[in-house]
């Protein structure tokens, strides 16, 4: 019986975490999306998200050891994120284009390149992630890394301008009337590089 009680306790605790993590993600998405609920509910969703985070000991006041234990467990079990795939709404696709400037005045455009479709999905995931508000502080650092990766392939370029935006998709009706996808500009960053042989790259 003790053996069964142990597994019962594991079952209860494990699915408690799964449920709370899923709810927290849902409550995080709801105030930020167009949903079937009126906007006046947004404050409730935000409160519910705070509560879920507190239950998961993710608030700053929680004991560090307990917080790290819970965080470690949910990562080991693969349950640290919810299951809102393409929900509540499908966002626009983020796009990053590099404009490479050469000393002789030439310019050319490049996008972050990988060699397989599966890797391409991962790069698209990365771009979608850094388009979100919670990545504001990291966005420039990550784009700088991506620009450095492009510069290594084109090391005679002295400046790379990274243009980050969202591809705006037409609706099915708009598409029928000739509207096509358009790009909405969001951010632009300039990174200067030293030509090879002179100094280390200085992105």
């Amino acid at each position, binding site marked *: 019986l003790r053996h069964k009680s142990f597994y019962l306790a594991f079952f209860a605790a494990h*699915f408690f975490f799964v449920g709370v993590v*899923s709810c927290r993600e849902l409550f995080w998405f709801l105030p930020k999306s167009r949903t079937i609920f009126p906007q006046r509910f947004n404050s409730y969703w935000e409160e519910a998200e705070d509560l879920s985070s507190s239950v998961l000991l993710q608030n700053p006041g929680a004991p560090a050891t307990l917080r790290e234990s819970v965080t*470690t467990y949910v990562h080991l079990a*693969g349950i640290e994120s919810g299951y809102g795939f393409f*929900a509540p709404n499908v966002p626009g*696709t983020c796009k990053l284009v590099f404009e490479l400037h050469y000393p002789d005045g030439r310019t050319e455009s490049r996008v972050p390149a990988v060699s397989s479709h599966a890797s391409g999905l991962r790069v698209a995931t990365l771009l979608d992630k850094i388009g979100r508000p919670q990545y504001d502080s990291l966005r420039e650092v990550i784009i700088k890394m991506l620009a450095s990766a492009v510069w290594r392939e084109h090391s005679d370029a002295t400046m790379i301008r990274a243009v980050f935006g969202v591809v705006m998709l037409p609706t099915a009706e708009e598409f029928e009337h000739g509207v096509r996808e358009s790009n909405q500009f969001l951010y632009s960053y300039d990174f200067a590089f030293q030509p090879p042989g002179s100094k280390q790259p200085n992105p």
Partner: protein
Amino acid sequence: LRRIELWKQRLVGFLFSPESDNWLALLRFGLGLQVVLYCLSIRTDWTYLLAGNGGLISRNLSETILALQSPLIPRLGWIVALGGHFGLGEESVLSIVWYCLVAAGCFLLLGLFSRSAAIATWLLHLAALKSADLLSYGMDNLTTIGLFYLMLSPLPDRLSLDWQWRKSRPKHRDLLGFWRRVLQTHVCLIYFFSGIAKCFGLGWWNGTNLWRALSRPPFDLISAETLVRFKHFLPITGIAVWVLEIGYPFFIWHRTLRRPWLIAILLMHVGVGVTMGMYLFASIMIVLNLAAFGPGILWHQRQPADDGSAPAESLAPSPNN
């Protein structure tokens, strides 16, 4: 109190029902194949995506963010540092990790040293996933979930080489039913929350989200010109998706509806794989579904004798017992 006791007994009966190991064989084989396909799919970019320096984005960034959350979550940086003590460079260590992960996946496929292979696959896959957290998506977490349960389940199963060739037997066969229930419950929760989240989005009622999902790069395998011809089907298909998902945890236990419901969900994932190019996402969902509910719903399964030497005549309990 008697009522609580009764509920507890029913819960114990539900969680610890006798079970054959067909589902476990499916899970082991499916996850082994999934991990091998995952490795092959990013083989040419493996080092480029996971390098600390000189890659697409530095692995160190993901690992630093991870360390702030908890220093105990596995990451490739540990293995690279260990390799450094033996004079191995980062690129060599990353290549070794790739080969080890493929080998562990193949061992899982064959069912050879099943437990060790499951632990090694879970650990290496998790380390690679966490070190490239910024590049990971839902499929990776679903694979971790499957590997976590596989590692804890009573391995080996009857179809493994461990059982057939090495004559190895699991210590706690009585827990086969429990771990299958865990997997079933998790799959139900995945669909429930996924369906609820979609149901709340306006675009899943009028077909807008389905149109966007199918026409946004890099999922736009079907041209918009073709897609627009089916625009009148988009609202009903969008609603069908979240109805299928929300209904899953309820109807998968229903005696007459469970079979069509499971087949519909499997077809939905085949559709996602074919129309959006999310082959690995589709395959992991199919593996988890087949392992959780396939035996007993899609085909009958026989309850093996305790030593597995000969099958008994009785049918194993179905998932809705």
